[in-house]
């Protein structure tokens, strides 16, 4: 065990799999000697050579397209997209190709590939270094979408993602990259894809969240406990697609009051799916409106980013609203 930050845990996860499996490769912009702009791939080229961790030209379409080809021919590529905001030139390769290859070929070809990318606000990156695009991908059958919220899960989920037979988009909350350290087991372990985790027990209300919003929601739950003496359950989804629907519905039914939180804009955001799922399968348990706390329906601003991002106050307000309904 050693105490690692989230970005170190990602690095450790990559190294662990690369040591174990020669077919695991890392490619992307600046992932080589520089070690990635966040240092997630630091030291990998030195340890595994240029054949296994290499810089690419500035083309996300190329990174993902080449990754797909490698995956179809026996490799396990882990592609880095430097910022999630820059994934869109590869949108066609991801949505039209990687996600549909197994299906359209009747199962003859498959794409066991991971796309790692940092997402979200908190670094004063403005419109193009702050976005949370999970909803663009979670609507895509054939993809899996994973977002860890802590170092332990980051490594364990990443290992599962690399071992998964299907393409996985692995979104890393850059705001948490160095926010705190956590004990992370050495060597290989895995956290299964498709399973949510309850981080705080409670029956008065439940808040669903993921990634960088998890500590924000935990703080809000703490405030509610302190101020109102009510217990809010905090559920970290961890995998957005396929969603752990049972965990969501069970918690919603148990608590009867639901708040959904994400950084991305509200309209057609991922939170809508959670609300809709509950409104279809557990509406009779609801004792209050299902409230979403999200980024606003605007592009991501720069100077005012901390007024844009949901914070513990906004989550606390929403919890109060459902608790007092």
């Amino acid at each position: 065990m050693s105490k690692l930050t989230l970005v170190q845990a990602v690095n450790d996860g990559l190294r662990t799999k690369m040591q174990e499996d020669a077919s695991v490769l890392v490619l992307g912009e600046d992932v080589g000697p520089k070690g990635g702009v966040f240092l997630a791939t630091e030291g990998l080229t030195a340890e595994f050579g240029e054949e296994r961790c290499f810089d690419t030209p500035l083309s996300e379409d190329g990174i993902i397209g080449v990754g797909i080809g490698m995956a179809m021919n026996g490799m396990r590529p882990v592609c880095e997209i430097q910022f999630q905001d820059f994934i869109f030139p590869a949108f066609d390769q991801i949505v039209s190709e990687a996600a549909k290859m197994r299906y359209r070929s009747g199962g003859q070809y498959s794409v066991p590939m991971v796309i790692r990318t940092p997402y979200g606000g908190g670094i004063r990156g403005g419109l193009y270094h702050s976005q949370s695009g999970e909803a663009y991908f979670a609507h895509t059958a054939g993809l899996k979408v994973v977002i860890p919220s802590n170092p332990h899960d980051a490594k364990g989920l990443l290992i599962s993602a690399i071992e998964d037979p299907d393409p996985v988009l692995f979104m890393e909350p850059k705001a948490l990259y160095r926010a705190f350290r956590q004990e992370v087991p050495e060597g290989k372990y895995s956290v299964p894809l498709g399973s949510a985790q309850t981080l705080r027990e409670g029956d008065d209300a439940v808040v669903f969240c993921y990634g960088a919003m998890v500590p924000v929601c935990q703080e809000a739950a703490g405030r509610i406990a302190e101020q109102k003496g009510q217990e809010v359950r905090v559920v970290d989804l961890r995998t957005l697609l396929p969603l752990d629907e049972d965990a969501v519905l069970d918690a919603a039914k148990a608590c009867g009051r639901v708040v959904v939180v994400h950084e991305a804009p509200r309209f057609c955001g991922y939170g809508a799916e959670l609300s809709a799922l509950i409104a279809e399968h557990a509406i009779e348990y609801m004792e209050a409106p299902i409230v979403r706390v999200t980024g606003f329906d605007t592009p991501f601003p720069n100077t005012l980013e901390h007024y844009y991002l949901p914070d513990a106050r906004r989550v606390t307000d929403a919890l109060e609203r459902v608790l007092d309904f």
Partner: protein
Amino acid sequence: MTETLQIINPAGEKVGKAPRVKREVLLRMYRAMASVRHFDDRCMKLQRTGRIGFSIPNLGIEAVSVGAAATLDPECDWIAPSYRDFGMAFFHGISVEKMMDTQFGNGEDHNKGRQMPVHFTFLDPIRFLSISSPIGTHLPQAVGVAMAMQRKQEKGVCLVSFGDGGTSSLGFHSGLNFAGVYKAPVVFLCQNNQWAISCPLEKQTASESIAIKGEAYGIPGVRVDGNDVLAVYRAVRDAVKKAREGGGPTLIEAVTMRMGGHSTSDDPSRYVDQELMEEWKLKDPLKRFREYLFAEGLLDEAGVEALDQELSEQIQAAAKAAAAKPRPGLETIFSDVYETFPAHLQVQRDQCIQHFAGRDESVNEEGEFPL
């Protein structure tokens, strides 16, 4: 000016240095080209009579796909084809039955009826990558396939084929760029058939040729007469050899002409000059190769007739058989999205099967493909 390699001229005469090709391979090439001609023709008829929804004419371009495919070793090489490459499948012995199954999208189709006609996918006897409708996406994928070969220290090469329109796609740019940088064992084959649906080459690009586009990526470009199967063979063979030996990629432009509509739904009379078509009719690749084989004493009229008879019957029989096969089961809507079934897809599958069970199965089956 980019030069154009030619070995057999339109009259069937040898005007360049012919590559050494075994007699049986030459005959296999001819058979594959003739198969395309018959298969294509049959598919046009099947579409016109409403038996299949769609097909892509291969008339006039048979030499490109066959000449290129004939250079590959199915043991180690891969093909990333375009939808206008029937000949690549035929040369490598993919059976007409299998191809017809895809044309009909029946329950035995390798794609499980999920793709439109002509979007073939095969693993055997050669890796024949799943054809995609989005243009150009398979170029970087082919480079990735080739880069995996480098890493596995295999001797394989990936041949990737696309149209003149495909050179404008994003995949062309990223594919050639990556291939150049990593010296990937890949051969880029552009079937320049002068049209992207109704867009003529000069509105597609202002470049002097397609071959010259390789310069932008440090990749040598070669232009060949695409109606001359031996010229295509020679250029691709050299490029394959070079790639196999670690010499990196080549871009080959095969100049030909699409002698029909873009697809069964296209009416080219709206935009193609009829005179031009008449000119190109004289350059027919099948006839040209036949004359050559006659001259070399490898084939005669009787042989041609027998072959035509055989292929025509075989293809008709395959169409009949494919038409008779049941459609894919309802569960195929839900399988292969992932390797295993996530819970929500299990639920959707079960509901769907239940929904149609015991109900009259007939659903609205209208809709005509426009393109």
